[in-house]
């Protein structure tokens, strides 16, 4: 099996998000590496995913999880060599799996040679690769993102005796995109990886590339121009490669990043995810349908990226205060579960390890319009460790078996980059790939099944969506349609059995075929279609006119 030539492959993708450090350690040093990752590709192929999103693996002082890059064209020695990466890439491609890597355009590490040169003297040729200023009063209208740690977006550099601009940590100076040399250099970096064979970039922190006085310095037209230029170059020189935007914004503000289909291919739908959790707890579909109503149309070649959980906290930036308080109260009872404006927990613990709720949430993830992302470990229901600082609690080693180090590494347990989960509910002896592979009924087997069903039709990835709004507000129902293929999805977001009447008159005469068991349901008539649903149950029906 090899990759198909398909410019819209991103619409049919099911993405698996993983950090090379956390997945598998091949050399016994306690840290995952590319050789280990390559060995686990068969597992990922079996799971059914067809894309991997790798977190940053570049050389870095690792003060911000690798998002502080000190060399763009190499691999961090702990994870292996560039050769190892190329081997892994080839292995993935052999299995029909595409690889998405991170590209941090906005800033570098302060350890990057470019910054070292730039700060060395006022006249250095690389001086204006970064944003320098004599005062810390420019760009006053710009918010500070990491309010917990940073006081200002300007930091004093004692060496060159001036201030430099940073939107994130002070050890991450922002590159100066007004400088054509910087733009040229960053394109060279991207070209470097594209030539190796990388299929897509997740571009980090894209709203902040350009600064202008008197603005918020976010989402500026100049920034969009730069991004469009990058896209043009990618399409020209590497057709079929994809760009994914990371921009934690409201859907309406995100819309410009798709341009007219000439900027990003995909962008994350940040506000949807907390509302899915909220709807589930409220037992009310309203938060989900409302955010979907506020989601603008995007060009046909573009796609939303949906996720339940990722390597960051469950972000609550895109909700109102009332909603945030509610989410904290119901999902993060303990203060230690909260971080910045979010909840640092994994999927299974958030849902009380309730298999029915985990299945329902995954069912919605796989059937709402967009490309789903599965965070590593969530396919087996891994837990988190809220006693580890920052977001490390959701970045513990993958649990492969009940054996030594959970099958992750042969190193001494004490030397692992992070302790394994040990508790009797989520620990590696209770939750691991090996034991779940052995039973048909495990979460892993179920995930394989749902991914297979999702990938059995293109309607989920590329189809249109129409919400049905049955009067029972605990039932979220929508119709996905592509060509002559129609799928009806009905989700009961409540903890109790529900009766629901669906207005399916438009589909009169169709027979409903449940997609998992392929059983036939009664034909749609003139009367409202009555369904009864168990707690947290969902149905996917293929509508067929026979």
């Amino acid at each position, binding site marked *: 099996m090899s990759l198909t030539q398909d410019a819209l492959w991103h619409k049919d993708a099911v993405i698996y998000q993983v950090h090379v450090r956390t997945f598998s350690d091949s050399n016994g040093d306690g840290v995952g590496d590319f050789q280990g990752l390559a060995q686990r590709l068969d597992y990922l192929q079996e799971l059914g995913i067809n894309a991997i999103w790798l977190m940053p693996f570049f050389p870095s002082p690792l003060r911000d999880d690798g998002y502080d890059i000190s060399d763009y064209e190499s691999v961090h020695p702990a994870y292996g060599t560039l050769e190892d990466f190329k081997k892994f890439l080839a292995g993935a491609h052999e299995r029909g799996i595409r690889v998405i890597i991170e590209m941090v355009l906005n800033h570098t590490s302060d350890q990057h040679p470019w910054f070292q040169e730039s700060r060395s003297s006022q006249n250095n040729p690389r001086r204006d690769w970064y944003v320098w200023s004599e005062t810390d009063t420019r760009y006053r209208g710009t918010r500070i993102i990491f309010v917990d740690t940073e006081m200002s977006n300007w930091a004093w550099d004692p060496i060159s005796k001036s201030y430099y601009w940073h939107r994130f940590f002070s050890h991450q100076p922002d590159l100066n995109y007004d400088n054509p040399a910087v733009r040229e250099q960053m394109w060279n970096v991207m070209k470097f990886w594209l030539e190796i064979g990388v299929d897509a970039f997740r571009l980090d922190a894209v709203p902040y590339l350009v600064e202008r006085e008197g603005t918020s310095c976010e989402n500026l037209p100049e920034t969009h121009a730069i991004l469009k230029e990058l896209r043009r170059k990618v399409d020209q020189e590497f057709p079929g490669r994809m760009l994914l935007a990371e921009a934690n914004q409201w859907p309406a503000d995100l819309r410009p990043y798709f341009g007219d289909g000439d900027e990003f291919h995909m962008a994350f739908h940040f506000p949807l995810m907390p509302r899915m959790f*909220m709807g589930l707890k*409220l*037992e*009310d*579909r*309203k*938060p989900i*349908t*409302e955010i979907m*109503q506020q989601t603008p149309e995007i060009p046909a070649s573009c796609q939303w990226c949906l996720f339940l959980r990722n390597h960051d906290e469950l972000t609550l930036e895109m909700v*109102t205060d*009332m*909603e945030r308080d*509610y989410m904290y109260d119901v999902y993060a009872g303990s203060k230690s579960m909260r971080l910045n404006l979010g909840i640092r927990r994994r999927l299974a613990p958030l849902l009380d390890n309730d298999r029915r709720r985990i299945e329902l949430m995954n069912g919605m993830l796989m059937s709402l319009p967009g490309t789903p992302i599965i965070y590593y470990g969530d396919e087996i229901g891994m837990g988190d460790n809220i006693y580890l600082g920052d977001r490390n609690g959701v970045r513990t080693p993958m649990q492969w078996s009940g054996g030594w180090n959970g099958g992750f590494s042969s190193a001494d347990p004490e030397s692992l980059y992070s302790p394994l989960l040990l508790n009797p509910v989520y620990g590696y002896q209770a939750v691991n790939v090996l034991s779940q592979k052995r039973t048909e009924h495990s979460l892993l087997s179920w995930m394989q099944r749902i991914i297979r069903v999702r990938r059995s039709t293109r309607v989920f990835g590329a189809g249109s969506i129409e*919400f049905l*709004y*049955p*009067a*029972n*507000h*605990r039932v979220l129902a929508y119709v996905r349609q592509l060509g002559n293929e129609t799928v009806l999805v009905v989700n009961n977001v*409540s903890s*109790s059995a*529900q*009766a629901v*009447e669906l207005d399916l008159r438009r589909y009169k005469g169709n027979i409903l075929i449940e997609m998992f068991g392929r059983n036939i349901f009664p034909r749609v008539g003139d009367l409202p279609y009555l369904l009864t649903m168990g707690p947290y149950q969902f149905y996917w029906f293929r509508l067929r006119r026979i």
Partner: protein
Amino acid sequence: MAEESVLTDDFLRQLINVGEVDILVGLPTYNNARTVGPVIEAIRAGIVKSFPRERAVIIDADGGSQDGTPDLVTGASINDVRHASNLYALRTLHSISTQYSDTPASGTALRTILAAAELLRARACAVISPDSTTIEPEWIPRLLRPISHEDFDLVTPVYRRHKFEGLLMRNLLYPMTRAIYGRRLREPYASEFGFSGRLGSQFLGQDVWRHEASRTGTEISLTIAAITGGYRLCQSFLGPKIHTDRSSSDLVPAMRQTVGTLFWSLEATFPAWSTSADLQTVPTHGCEYEVTQEPVRVNRKRLYEMFCSGVGELAPVFSSILSAGTLAELQRMASLSEGDFRYPAELWVRTVYEFAASYHKSVISRDHIIQAMAPLYRGRMFTFLGENRDASAEEIENSVEMLCHEFERLKPYLLEIWNGRE
């Protein structure tokens, strides 16, 4: 015999869609399009502000309005289909309506609301009158919070009223229920009140509904059921209450609803009230008693005339209701001039008790008994207005308190005439 269901199929379907709720607000309407808009607005704001996380529903039990009242109510739903106003709510808020019959009957309306509350397993319910134009969103938590947070079962209101409003309440209903059942409930018959799900279910299960009296005035039966059933009661100060459209000609229906139901309830609860009645205060949230003093012009002369003509004309009716002594006393009063006329508290209490006993014994048609009482009440009102013309709030409160004592003092007299022939 299969009980007739009070819930239509359509209403049941709506209830299925609403599902289990924490909070239910009922609204008995009949052609209230003029006032219901702001009322429902306030209810909705109250729910969203004070109970944002609770599952709530507004239920309109309509008596066959012709003016589009139900549409105004259902239009207040907050859901993902219709985006309502500036209110932001976490949840869907259903506002549904059902027509229980073609003719309005407050009892049937309440029964519909109770039945819905039981089916939806509402923990805290409130009933709001659709013509309460003075309603504030705060009324909702004031009626519901004691139930949801403090485990009370019935919350009756206290209003800020004009000192001459609610005279039937002050001259008969409050003192008599207080004397009979031993609870200081200012408004035993309220158009706004809150109740717990368990009280609602228990009351719904009682057989009051089979009786004709259940068609109106059920609110007072609910209060009495809560008292005799040993439920926890409290009062909550709401604010000003202004009755729209109540003229004196409405006195007889009002008496039927309140006095009639009170008398009727005395029968079934006889074992409860005949034995004990320690006076208990009822915890009150907010101030207990407040009156306003703007001057009003009342045609007292007419009250006096109607009393005199009533006593004269109704003599044969009174003779079968009242004791000879009381009747003679009334007739003597009726012959006095307006200036000398005074209906003393003791005689008033005696009159009321004799009416209650006659009602119990059904000496004539019970409805006629209640009707016959209206002219006498007018006489009492004449006296009350005269005595309190310049009274301050405390003085009025004192005179009501005196009347209460009179009712309490004469309770043995009621017990005496309850079964014996006078």
